[in-house]
Protein backbone atom coordinates (compact mmCIF):
# COMPACT_ATOMS: atom_id res chain seq x y z
CA UNK A 1 0.00 0.00 0.00
CA UNK A 2 2.91 2.22 -0.72
CA UNK A 3 1.45 4.09 -3.68
CA UNK A 4 -0.17 7.50 -3.40
CA UNK A 5 -3.74 7.56 -2.13
CA UNK A 6 -6.21 9.74 -4.01
CA UNK A 7 -8.94 9.21 -1.43
CA UNK A 8 -8.32 8.64 2.22
CA UNK A 9 -10.69 8.44 5.17
CA UNK A 10 -9.57 8.95 8.73
CA UNK A 11 -11.71 7.74 11.62
CA UNK A 12 -14.84 8.29 9.57
CA UNK A 13 -18.07 7.90 11.50
CA UNK A 14 -21.54 8.43 10.16
CA UNK A 15 -24.94 8.43 11.76
CA UNK A 16 -28.36 8.34 10.17
CA UNK A 17 -30.38 9.86 12.98
CA UNK A 18 -29.65 7.46 15.87
CA UNK A 19 -28.26 4.73 13.67
CA UNK A 20 -24.47 4.49 13.66
CA UNK A 21 -23.91 3.44 10.06
CA UNK A 22 -20.15 3.80 9.66
CA UNK A 23 -17.78 3.16 12.52
CA UNK A 24 -14.20 4.41 12.57
CA UNK A 25 -13.43 3.77 8.95
CA UNK A 26 -9.88 4.50 7.95
CA UNK A 27 -8.92 3.52 4.45
CA UNK A 28 -6.59 4.68 1.68
CA UNK A 29 -7.81 4.26 -1.88
CA UNK A 30 -4.80 4.06 -4.21
CA UNK A 31 -4.81 6.16 -7.34
CA UNK A 32 -5.72 4.69 -10.74
CA UNK A 33 -6.76 1.32 -9.43
CA UNK A 34 -10.00 -0.53 -9.04
CA UNK A 35 -11.04 -0.99 -5.45
CA UNK A 36 -13.95 -3.23 -4.60
CA UNK A 37 -16.04 -2.98 -1.44
CA UNK A 38 -17.80 -6.17 -0.44
CA UNK A 39 -19.92 -7.23 2.47
CA UNK A 40 -23.44 -8.30 3.35
CA UNK A 41 -26.41 -6.02 2.71
CA UNK A 42 -26.67 -3.13 5.13
CA UNK A 43 -22.99 -3.27 6.13
CA UNK A 44 -22.41 0.32 5.10
CA UNK A 45 -20.49 -0.08 1.84
CA UNK A 46 -22.90 2.04 -0.19
CA UNK A 47 -22.95 4.59 2.60
CA UNK A 48 -19.17 4.79 2.57
CA UNK A 49 -19.26 5.24 -1.18
CA UNK A 50 -21.83 8.01 -0.97
CA UNK A 51 -19.76 9.78 1.66
CA UNK A 52 -16.86 10.11 -0.70
CA UNK A 53 -18.62 12.63 -2.95
CA UNK A 54 -20.90 13.98 -0.24
CA UNK A 55 -24.05 12.54 -1.76
CA UNK A 56 -25.02 11.84 1.84
CA UNK A 57 -25.49 15.58 2.27
CA UNK A 58 -28.80 15.04 0.52
CA UNK A 59 -30.03 12.95 3.43
CA UNK A 60 -31.05 15.36 6.12
CA UNK A 61 -30.59 13.14 9.11
CA UNK A 62 -27.01 12.16 8.31
CA UNK A 63 -24.13 13.35 10.46
CA UNK A 64 -20.44 12.79 9.81
CA UNK A 65 -17.29 12.97 11.96
CA UNK A 66 -13.74 12.26 10.94
CA UNK A 67 -12.05 13.22 7.70
CA UNK A 68 -12.23 12.28 4.05
CA UNK A 69 -9.23 13.55 2.18
CA UNK A 70 -9.31 13.92 -1.57
CA UNK A 71 -5.83 14.63 -2.92
CA UNK A 72 -4.98 15.66 0.61
CA UNK A 73 -7.83 18.14 1.07
CA UNK A 74 -10.70 17.51 3.45
CA UNK A 75 -13.93 17.38 1.41
CA UNK A 76 -15.95 18.44 4.45
CA UNK A 77 -13.94 21.62 4.80
CA UNK A 78 -16.51 24.41 5.11
CA UNK A 79 -14.78 26.24 2.28
CA UNK A 80 -14.97 23.21 0.01
CA UNK A 81 -17.26 23.48 -2.97
CA UNK A 82 -19.40 20.39 -2.89
CA UNK A 83 -20.23 20.71 -6.59
CA UNK A 84 -16.59 20.71 -7.64
CA UNK A 85 -16.04 17.70 -5.41
CA UNK A 86 -18.82 15.82 -7.16
CA UNK A 87 -17.47 16.91 -10.49
CA UNK A 88 -14.11 15.43 -9.60
CA UNK A 89 -15.56 12.38 -7.90
CA UNK A 90 -18.27 10.99 -10.16
CA UNK A 91 -20.79 8.32 -9.39
CA UNK A 92 -22.62 5.55 -11.22
CA UNK A 93 -25.70 4.16 -9.57
CA UNK A 94 -27.16 0.73 -9.01
CA UNK A 95 -30.03 1.24 -11.41
CA UNK A 96 -29.27 3.04 -14.66
CA UNK A 97 -30.74 6.52 -14.34
CA UNK A 98 -30.44 8.32 -17.67
CA UNK A 99 -32.33 11.60 -17.84
CA UNK A 100 -35.46 11.63 -19.98
CA UNK A 101 -33.53 13.41 -22.73
CA UNK A 102 -31.71 12.32 -25.86
CA UNK A 103 -28.51 10.28 -25.69
CA UNK A 104 -26.53 13.32 -26.76
CA UNK A 105 -28.11 15.60 -24.16
CA UNK A 106 -27.48 13.06 -21.44
CA UNK A 107 -23.77 13.03 -22.09
CA UNK A 108 -23.59 16.76 -22.73
CA UNK A 109 -25.50 17.55 -19.55
CA UNK A 110 -22.44 17.57 -17.28
CA UNK A 111 -20.18 19.72 -19.48
CA UNK A 112 -23.08 22.11 -20.07
CA UNK A 113 -23.77 22.70 -16.40
CA UNK A 114 -20.07 23.32 -15.93
CA UNK A 115 -20.10 26.03 -18.52
CA UNK A 116 -19.21 24.39 -21.84
CA UNK A 117 -21.60 25.67 -24.49
CA UNK A 118 -19.63 25.50 -27.74
CA UNK A 119 -21.23 22.93 -29.99
CA UNK A 120 -17.95 21.65 -31.45
CA UNK A 121 -16.40 21.08 -28.06
CA UNK A 122 -19.55 19.38 -26.82
CA UNK A 123 -19.62 17.12 -29.89
CA UNK A 124 -16.10 15.98 -29.16
CA UNK A 125 -16.74 15.42 -25.49
CA UNK A 126 -19.84 13.38 -26.29
CA UNK A 127 -18.00 11.25 -28.82
CA UNK A 128 -14.96 10.71 -26.62
CA UNK A 129 -17.06 9.89 -23.60
CA UNK A 130 -19.26 7.46 -25.50
CA UNK A 131 -16.15 5.82 -26.94
CA UNK A 132 -14.70 5.73 -23.44
CA UNK A 133 -17.78 3.89 -22.29
CA UNK A 134 -17.66 1.53 -25.30
CA UNK A 135 -21.05 2.71 -26.47
CA UNK A 136 -20.16 4.91 -29.43
CA UNK A 137 -20.46 2.28 -32.14
CA UNK A 138 -23.87 1.21 -30.92
CA UNK A 139 -25.42 4.68 -30.74
CA UNK A 140 -23.50 6.93 -33.12
CA UNK A 141 -26.38 6.89 -35.62
CA UNK A 142 -29.06 7.73 -33.11
CA UNK A 143 -27.55 10.26 -30.77
CA UNK A 144 -30.73 12.30 -30.71
CA UNK A 145 -33.04 9.48 -29.80
CA UNK A 146 -34.37 9.21 -26.26
CA UNK A 147 -31.93 7.59 -23.88
CA UNK A 148 -34.72 5.59 -22.30
CA UNK A 149 -35.10 3.64 -25.54
CA UNK A 150 -31.73 1.95 -24.92
CA UNK A 151 -31.44 -1.46 -23.28
CA UNK A 152 -30.57 -1.69 -19.59
CA UNK A 153 -26.90 -2.46 -20.22
CA UNK A 154 -26.62 0.32 -22.77
CA UNK A 155 -28.29 2.71 -20.34
CA UNK A 156 -25.75 1.86 -17.67
CA UNK A 157 -22.89 2.44 -20.10
CA UNK A 158 -24.51 5.72 -21.07
CA UNK A 159 -24.49 6.68 -17.39
CA UNK A 160 -20.79 5.83 -17.30
CA UNK A 161 -20.24 7.96 -20.40
CA UNK A 162 -22.20 10.78 -18.79
CA UNK A 163 -19.93 10.48 -15.80
CA UNK A 164 -16.73 10.41 -17.90
CA UNK A 165 -17.82 13.54 -19.75
CA UNK A 166 -17.06 15.75 -16.77
CA UNK A 167 -13.58 14.22 -16.41
CA UNK A 168 -13.74 12.97 -12.86
CA UNK A 169 -10.60 11.69 -11.17
CA UNK A 170 -12.50 9.12 -9.18
CA UNK A 171 -15.56 7.17 -10.25
CA UNK A 172 -17.67 5.61 -7.54
CA UNK A 173 -19.84 2.72 -8.69
CA UNK A 174 -22.65 1.44 -6.53
CA UNK A 175 -23.43 -2.12 -7.66
CA UNK A 176 -23.47 -0.99 -11.28
CA UNK A 177 -24.28 -4.45 -12.62
CA UNK A 178 -26.89 -5.66 -10.20
CA UNK A 179 -29.74 -4.80 -12.53
CA UNK A 180 -28.10 -6.26 -15.65
CA UNK A 181 -27.89 -9.63 -17.35
CA UNK A 182 -24.58 -11.57 -17.50
CA UNK A 183 -23.62 -10.36 -21.00
CA UNK A 184 -24.16 -6.70 -20.13
CA UNK A 185 -22.35 -7.30 -16.85
CA UNK A 186 -19.32 -8.68 -18.64
CA UNK A 187 -19.21 -5.63 -20.89
CA UNK A 188 -19.33 -3.29 -17.92
CA UNK A 189 -16.58 -5.22 -16.15
CA UNK A 190 -14.31 -4.92 -19.17
CA UNK A 191 -15.12 -1.27 -19.27
CA UNK A 192 -14.23 -0.78 -15.62
CA UNK A 193 -10.78 -2.26 -16.11
CA UNK A 194 -10.28 -0.04 -19.15
CA UNK A 195 -11.43 3.10 -17.37
CA UNK A 196 -9.12 2.42 -14.45
CA UNK A 197 -6.11 3.18 -16.65
CA UNK A 198 -6.87 6.83 -16.31
CA UNK A 199 -9.25 6.95 -13.38
CA UNK A 200 -9.60 5.63 -9.91
CA UNK A 201 -12.61 3.38 -9.59
CA UNK A 202 -14.29 2.34 -6.36
CA UNK A 203 -16.96 -0.27 -6.85
CA UNK A 204 -19.47 -1.74 -4.46
CA UNK A 205 -20.53 -5.22 -5.41
CA UNK A 206 -22.28 -8.28 -4.10
CA UNK A 207 -20.70 -10.40 -6.75
CA UNK A 208 -17.59 -12.12 -5.38
CA UNK A 209 -16.39 -13.13 -8.85
CA UNK A 210 -16.75 -9.58 -10.01
CA UNK A 211 -14.64 -8.31 -7.16
CA UNK A 212 -12.05 -10.97 -7.83
CA UNK A 213 -12.01 -10.38 -11.59
CA UNK A 214 -12.10 -6.63 -11.81
CA UNK A 215 -10.41 -5.19 -8.74
CA UNK A 216 -6.90 -4.88 -7.42
CA UNK A 217 -7.86 -3.97 -3.91
CA UNK A 218 -10.78 -5.20 -1.88
CA UNK A 219 -12.27 -4.01 1.35
CA UNK A 220 -14.59 -6.20 3.38
CA UNK A 221 -17.15 -4.43 5.52
CA UNK A 222 -19.40 -5.78 8.21
CA UNK A 223 -21.90 -3.97 10.44
CA UNK A 224 -20.52 -0.53 9.64
CA UNK A 225 -16.90 -1.47 10.21
CA UNK A 226 -14.14 -2.01 7.70
CA UNK A 227 -12.94 -5.45 8.73
CA UNK A 228 -10.14 -5.86 6.28
CA UNK A 229 -8.61 -3.99 3.36
CA UNK A 230 -5.90 -5.44 1.19
CA UNK A 231 -4.87 -6.58 -2.27
CA UNK A 232 -7.72 -8.52 -3.83
CA UNK A 233 -5.60 -11.61 -4.30
CA UNK A 234 -4.73 -11.56 -0.64
CA UNK A 235 -8.31 -11.10 0.50
CA UNK A 236 -9.55 -13.94 -1.62
CA UNK A 237 -6.68 -16.35 -1.08
CA UNK A 238 -5.49 -15.69 2.42
CA UNK A 239 -7.62 -13.27 4.39
CA UNK A 240 -6.31 -12.16 7.73
CA UNK A 241 -9.69 -12.18 9.44
CA UNK A 242 -11.86 -15.20 10.00
CA UNK A 243 -14.98 -13.11 9.36
CA UNK A 244 -13.70 -12.26 5.89
CA UNK A 245 -12.93 -15.84 5.10
CA UNK A 246 -16.35 -16.98 6.24
CA UNK A 247 -18.02 -14.39 4.05
CA UNK A 248 -15.97 -15.18 0.97
CA UNK A 249 -16.42 -18.88 1.29
CA UNK A 250 -20.12 -18.49 1.82
CA UNK A 251 -20.14 -19.88 5.35
CA UNK A 252 -21.65 -16.79 6.68
CA UNK A 253 -24.04 -16.13 9.50
Amino acid sequence: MGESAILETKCLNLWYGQKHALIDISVRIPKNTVTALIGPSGCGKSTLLRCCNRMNDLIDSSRVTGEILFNGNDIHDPRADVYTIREKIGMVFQKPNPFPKSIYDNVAYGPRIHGVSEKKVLDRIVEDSLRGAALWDEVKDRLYEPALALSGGQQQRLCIARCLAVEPEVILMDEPCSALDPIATAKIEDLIIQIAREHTVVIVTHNMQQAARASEYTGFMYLGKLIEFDKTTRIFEDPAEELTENYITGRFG
Partner: protein
Amino acid sequence: MTGKSLSGATTVAVAGIFVVLLMAAGCVGGQSSDSSTPQHITVTGSTTVLPIAEKTKEAFEERDASADIMVSGGGSSVGIKAVGEGTADIGMTSRDLKSEEATGYPGLVRHHIADDAILLIVNPENTVDSLTLDEVRGIYNGTYTTWDQVGGPEEQIVVVGRDSASGTREFFSEYVLKKEDFVKTQEEFNSNGGIQQKVSRTPGAIGYVGLGYTGGVKALWLDVGGTAVEPTLENITSKKYPISRPLFMLTNGEPDGLARQYLDFIMSEEGQEIVASVDYIPVQE
Protein backbone atom coordinates in the same frame (compact mmCIF):
# COMPACT_ATOMS: atom_id res chain seq x y z
CA MET B 1 -39.95 8.94 -25.40
CA THR B 2 -40.45 10.97 -28.52
CA GLY B 3 -44.04 11.03 -27.35
CA LYS B 4 -43.00 12.69 -24.16
CA SER B 5 -40.96 15.48 -25.61
CA LEU B 6 -43.66 15.92 -28.23
CA SER B 7 -46.34 16.23 -25.58
CA GLY B 8 -44.20 18.79 -23.83
CA ALA B 9 -44.08 20.73 -27.07
CA THR B 10 -47.82 20.43 -27.49
CA THR B 11 -48.56 21.71 -24.04
CA VAL B 12 -46.22 24.60 -24.54
CA ALA B 13 -47.98 25.28 -27.82
CA VAL B 14 -51.35 25.20 -26.13
CA ALA B 15 -50.18 27.60 -23.46
CA GLY B 16 -48.70 29.74 -26.20
CA ILE B 17 -51.94 29.83 -28.14
CA PHE B 18 -53.74 30.91 -25.03
CA VAL B 19 -51.31 33.74 -24.42
CA VAL B 20 -51.60 34.83 -28.04
CA LEU B 21 -55.38 34.79 -27.77
CA LEU B 22 -55.18 36.97 -24.71
CA MET B 23 -52.89 39.38 -26.44
CA ALA B 24 -55.09 39.43 -29.51
CA ALA B 25 -58.05 40.18 -27.31
CA GLY B 26 -55.99 42.92 -25.75
CA CYS B 27 -55.24 44.44 -29.15
CA VAL B 28 -58.87 44.37 -30.19
CA GLY B 29 -59.75 46.01 -26.93
CA GLY B 30 -57.07 48.61 -27.34
CA GLN B 31 -58.23 49.47 -30.82
CA SER B 32 -61.86 49.91 -30.03
CA SER B 33 -61.17 52.19 -27.11
CA ASP B 34 -58.64 54.17 -29.10
CA SER B 35 -61.06 54.83 -31.93
CA SER B 36 -62.29 57.89 -30.11
CA THR B 37 -60.88 59.70 -27.13
CA PRO B 38 -63.69 58.97 -24.75
CA GLN B 39 -64.68 60.94 -21.72
CA HIS B 40 -65.19 58.46 -18.92
CA ILE B 41 -67.70 58.46 -16.18
CA THR B 42 -68.73 55.56 -14.03
CA VAL B 43 -72.20 55.05 -12.70
CA THR B 44 -72.72 52.42 -10.06
CA GLY B 45 -75.16 51.32 -7.40
CA SER B 46 -78.73 50.11 -7.08
CA THR B 47 -79.84 47.38 -9.45
CA THR B 48 -83.32 48.92 -9.38
CA VAL B 49 -82.06 52.13 -10.97
CA LEU B 50 -79.73 50.25 -13.28
CA PRO B 51 -82.17 49.87 -16.22
CA ILE B 52 -82.76 53.64 -16.31
CA ALA B 53 -79.06 54.34 -16.26
CA GLU B 54 -78.41 51.71 -18.86
CA LYS B 55 -81.07 52.82 -21.33
CA THR B 56 -80.41 56.53 -20.98
CA LYS B 57 -76.71 55.81 -21.36
CA GLU B 58 -77.35 54.02 -24.64
CA ALA B 59 -79.39 56.93 -25.95
CA PHE B 60 -76.87 59.44 -24.68
CA GLU B 61 -73.93 57.66 -26.21
CA GLU B 62 -75.74 57.51 -29.52
CA ARG B 63 -75.86 61.29 -29.57
CA ASP B 64 -72.36 61.80 -28.22
CA ALA B 65 -70.02 59.17 -29.59
CA SER B 66 -67.09 60.33 -27.50
CA ALA B 67 -68.86 59.66 -24.23
CA ASP B 68 -68.09 56.49 -22.35
CA ILE B 69 -70.45 55.87 -19.50
CA MET B 70 -69.83 52.72 -17.55
CA VAL B 71 -72.81 51.41 -15.67
CA SER B 72 -72.55 48.76 -13.03
CA GLY B 73 -74.79 47.33 -10.37
CA GLY B 74 -73.83 46.17 -6.94
CA GLY B 75 -76.53 47.70 -4.82
CA SER B 76 -77.50 51.02 -3.29
CA SER B 77 -74.83 50.83 -0.62
CA VAL B 78 -72.12 50.23 -3.19
CA GLY B 79 -73.36 53.26 -5.11
CA ILE B 80 -73.38 55.53 -2.06
CA LYS B 81 -69.98 54.36 -0.90
CA ALA B 82 -68.43 54.58 -4.35
CA VAL B 83 -69.59 58.11 -5.07
CA GLY B 84 -68.80 59.20 -1.53
CA GLU B 85 -65.27 57.82 -1.78
CA GLY B 86 -64.82 59.21 -5.26
CA THR B 87 -64.39 55.84 -6.98
CA ALA B 88 -67.48 56.51 -9.10
CA ASP B 89 -68.83 59.72 -10.57
CA ILE B 90 -72.48 58.97 -10.08
CA GLY B 91 -74.10 56.70 -7.52
CA MET B 92 -77.51 55.18 -7.85
CA THR B 93 -79.72 54.45 -4.88
CA SER B 94 -83.24 53.22 -4.41
CA ARG B 95 -83.33 54.31 -0.78
CA ASP B 96 -82.57 57.49 1.08
CA LEU B 97 -79.21 57.92 2.76
CA LYS B 98 -78.87 56.30 6.15
CA SER B 99 -77.82 58.62 8.95
CA GLU B 100 -74.27 57.21 9.09
CA GLU B 101 -73.96 57.62 5.34
CA ALA B 102 -75.29 61.18 5.39
CA THR B 103 -72.79 62.19 8.07
CA GLY B 104 -69.97 60.17 6.50
CA TYR B 105 -70.36 61.80 3.10
CA PRO B 106 -71.77 65.27 3.72
CA GLY B 107 -71.06 66.41 0.16
CA LEU B 108 -73.51 64.07 -1.55
CA VAL B 109 -76.16 65.72 -3.74
CA ARG B 110 -79.35 63.80 -4.50
CA HIS B 111 -81.00 63.95 -7.90
CA HIS B 112 -84.51 62.58 -7.86
CA ILE B 113 -84.70 61.07 -11.34
CA ALA B 114 -87.74 58.78 -11.22
CA ASP B 115 -90.21 56.98 -9.04
CA ASP B 116 -90.58 53.29 -8.70
CA ALA B 117 -93.87 51.61 -7.98
CA ILE B 118 -93.88 48.38 -6.04
CA LEU B 119 -96.30 45.85 -7.44
CA LEU B 120 -97.62 42.78 -5.73
CA ILE B 121 -97.53 39.87 -8.11
CA VAL B 122 -99.07 36.43 -8.02
CA ASN B 123 -99.12 33.50 -10.34
CA PRO B 124 -101.56 33.93 -13.27
CA GLU B 125 -103.46 30.83 -12.12
CA ASN B 126 -104.31 32.50 -8.82
CA THR B 127 -107.95 33.61 -8.66
CA VAL B 128 -107.24 36.45 -6.27
CA ASP B 129 -107.26 39.77 -8.12
CA SER B 130 -106.98 42.38 -5.41
CA LEU B 131 -105.92 42.69 -1.80
CA THR B 132 -106.09 45.39 0.83
CA LEU B 133 -102.88 46.68 2.38
CA ASP B 134 -103.87 44.98 5.63
CA GLU B 135 -104.23 41.67 3.85
CA VAL B 136 -100.83 42.11 2.27
CA ARG B 137 -99.38 42.86 5.67
CA GLY B 138 -101.12 39.79 7.06
CA ILE B 139 -99.59 37.63 4.38
CA TYR B 140 -96.08 39.00 4.87
CA ASN B 141 -96.10 38.87 8.67
CA GLY B 142 -97.40 35.34 8.71
CA THR B 143 -101.01 35.92 9.87
CA TYR B 144 -102.42 34.40 6.71
CA THR B 145 -100.91 31.19 5.47
CA THR B 146 -103.42 30.01 2.88
CA TRP B 147 -105.07 31.82 0.04
CA ASP B 148 -108.63 31.02 1.18
CA GLN B 149 -108.06 33.31 4.14
CA VAL B 150 -107.95 36.23 1.72
CA GLY B 151 -110.63 35.05 -0.66
CA GLY B 152 -108.64 32.74 -2.86
CA PRO B 153 -108.30 29.02 -3.46
CA GLU B 154 -107.41 26.56 -0.76
CA GLU B 155 -103.72 26.66 -1.33
CA GLN B 156 -100.71 27.39 0.78
CA ILE B 157 -99.22 30.86 0.33
CA VAL B 158 -95.58 30.88 -0.72
CA VAL B 159 -94.26 34.22 0.48
CA VAL B 160 -91.46 35.56 -1.68
CA GLY B 161 -89.46 38.70 -0.97
CA ARG B 162 -86.17 40.48 -1.40
CA ASP B 163 -83.05 39.94 0.65
CA SER B 164 -82.67 41.88 3.86
CA ALA B 165 -80.08 44.28 2.45
CA SER B 166 -82.34 45.44 -0.36
CA GLY B 167 -83.72 48.97 -0.58
CA THR B 168 -86.94 47.66 -2.10
CA ARG B 169 -87.49 45.44 0.90
CA GLU B 170 -86.69 48.26 3.26
CA PHE B 171 -89.32 50.44 1.65
CA PHE B 172 -91.85 47.62 1.58
CA SER B 173 -91.15 46.89 5.21
CA GLU B 174 -91.68 50.48 6.23
CA TYR B 175 -94.66 51.27 4.06
CA VAL B 176 -96.62 48.02 4.00
CA LEU B 177 -95.48 46.09 7.02
CA LYS B 178 -95.15 49.12 9.27
CA LYS B 179 -91.79 47.63 10.27
CA GLU B 180 -93.26 44.42 11.59
CA ASP B 181 -91.04 41.39 11.06
CA PHE B 182 -91.45 39.33 7.92
CA VAL B 183 -92.65 35.78 8.29
CA LYS B 184 -89.59 33.64 8.75
CA THR B 185 -90.42 31.21 5.99
CA GLN B 186 -90.31 33.98 3.39
CA GLU B 187 -88.16 32.89 0.47
CA GLU B 188 -85.61 35.51 -0.39
CA PHE B 189 -84.13 36.51 -3.71
CA ASN B 190 -81.67 39.25 -4.39
CA SER B 191 -83.34 40.64 -7.48
CA ASN B 192 -86.69 41.59 -8.93
CA GLY B 193 -86.10 39.16 -11.76
CA GLY B 194 -85.57 36.33 -9.35
CA ILE B 195 -88.87 37.01 -7.64
CA GLN B 196 -90.69 37.33 -10.93
CA GLN B 197 -89.28 34.04 -12.16
CA LYS B 198 -90.17 32.33 -8.92
CA VAL B 199 -93.75 33.63 -8.84
CA SER B 200 -94.35 32.84 -12.49
CA ARG B 201 -93.47 29.22 -11.84
CA THR B 202 -95.10 28.72 -8.45
CA PRO B 203 -98.93 28.67 -8.30
CA GLY B 204 -99.20 29.67 -4.64
CA ALA B 205 -96.57 32.38 -4.62
CA ILE B 206 -96.83 36.10 -3.94
CA GLY B 207 -94.00 38.56 -4.39
CA TYR B 208 -93.26 42.26 -4.76
CA VAL B 209 -91.34 43.74 -7.65
CA GLY B 210 -90.81 46.94 -9.62
CA LEU B 211 -93.17 47.98 -12.38
CA GLY B 212 -91.22 46.34 -15.19
CA TYR B 213 -91.32 42.80 -13.88
CA THR B 214 -94.81 41.68 -14.80
CA GLY B 215 -94.11 39.19 -17.60
CA GLY B 216 -95.60 35.79 -16.80
CA VAL B 217 -97.20 36.97 -13.57
CA LYS B 218 -100.36 38.76 -12.55
CA ALA B 219 -100.10 42.16 -10.86
CA LEU B 220 -102.62 42.52 -8.05
CA TRP B 221 -104.92 45.52 -7.70
CA LEU B 222 -104.77 47.26 -4.37
CA ASP B 223 -107.96 47.79 -2.46
CA VAL B 224 -107.74 51.35 -1.17
CA GLY B 225 -110.72 52.44 0.89
CA GLY B 226 -113.09 50.00 -0.80
CA THR B 227 -112.07 50.61 -4.41
CA ALA B 228 -109.59 48.40 -6.16
CA VAL B 229 -106.87 50.40 -7.91
CA GLU B 230 -105.03 48.95 -10.87
CA PRO B 231 -101.29 49.63 -10.87
CA THR B 232 -101.22 51.61 -14.08
CA LEU B 233 -98.77 54.33 -14.91
CA GLU B 234 -101.53 56.90 -14.59
CA ASN B 235 -102.74 55.66 -11.21
CA ILE B 236 -99.24 55.52 -9.87
CA THR B 237 -98.33 58.99 -11.09
CA SER B 238 -101.45 60.37 -9.53
CA LYS B 239 -100.62 58.50 -6.32
CA LYS B 240 -103.95 56.68 -6.44
CA TYR B 241 -101.92 53.51 -6.35
CA PRO B 242 -100.23 54.00 -3.02
CA ILE B 243 -96.92 52.10 -3.06
CA SER B 244 -94.19 54.01 -4.84
CA ARG B 245 -90.83 55.39 -3.83
CA PRO B 246 -88.27 57.83 -5.19
CA LEU B 247 -85.13 56.77 -7.02
CA PHE B 248 -82.00 58.89 -6.82
CA MET B 249 -78.74 59.48 -8.52
CA LEU B 250 -76.02 60.91 -6.31
CA THR B 251 -73.05 63.09 -7.06
CA ASN B 252 -70.36 64.30 -4.74
CA GLY B 253 -70.97 68.05 -4.89
CA GLU B 254 -72.73 69.62 -7.86
CA PRO B 255 -71.93 67.66 -10.99
CA ASP B 256 -69.95 69.04 -13.91
CA GLY B 257 -68.70 67.90 -17.28
CA LEU B 258 -70.05 64.67 -18.67
CA ALA B 259 -71.82 63.79 -15.42
CA ARG B 260 -73.74 67.07 -15.61
CA GLN B 261 -74.66 66.48 -19.26
CA TYR B 262 -75.76 62.97 -18.54
CA LEU B 263 -77.94 63.93 -15.58
CA ASP B 264 -79.44 66.79 -17.59
CA PHE B 265 -80.23 64.33 -20.33
CA ILE B 266 -82.06 62.02 -17.91
CA MET B 267 -84.11 64.92 -16.63
CA SER B 268 -84.92 66.13 -20.15
CA GLU B 269 -88.13 65.22 -21.88
CA GLU B 270 -86.39 62.58 -23.95
CA GLY B 271 -84.73 61.16 -20.87
CA GLN B 272 -87.96 60.94 -18.95
CA GLU B 273 -89.61 59.21 -21.90
CA ILE B 274 -86.92 56.59 -21.63
CA VAL B 275 -87.66 56.34 -17.90
CA ALA B 276 -91.28 55.55 -18.73
CA SER B 277 -90.24 53.14 -21.48
CA VAL B 278 -88.36 50.99 -18.96
CA ASP B 279 -91.41 50.97 -16.68
CA TYR B 280 -90.53 53.59 -14.13
CA ILE B 281 -92.53 56.65 -13.22
CA PRO B 282 -91.26 59.92 -14.71
CA VAL B 283 -90.83 62.77 -12.24
CA GLN B 284 -91.29 65.63 -14.72
CA GLU B 285 -94.12 66.15 -17.16
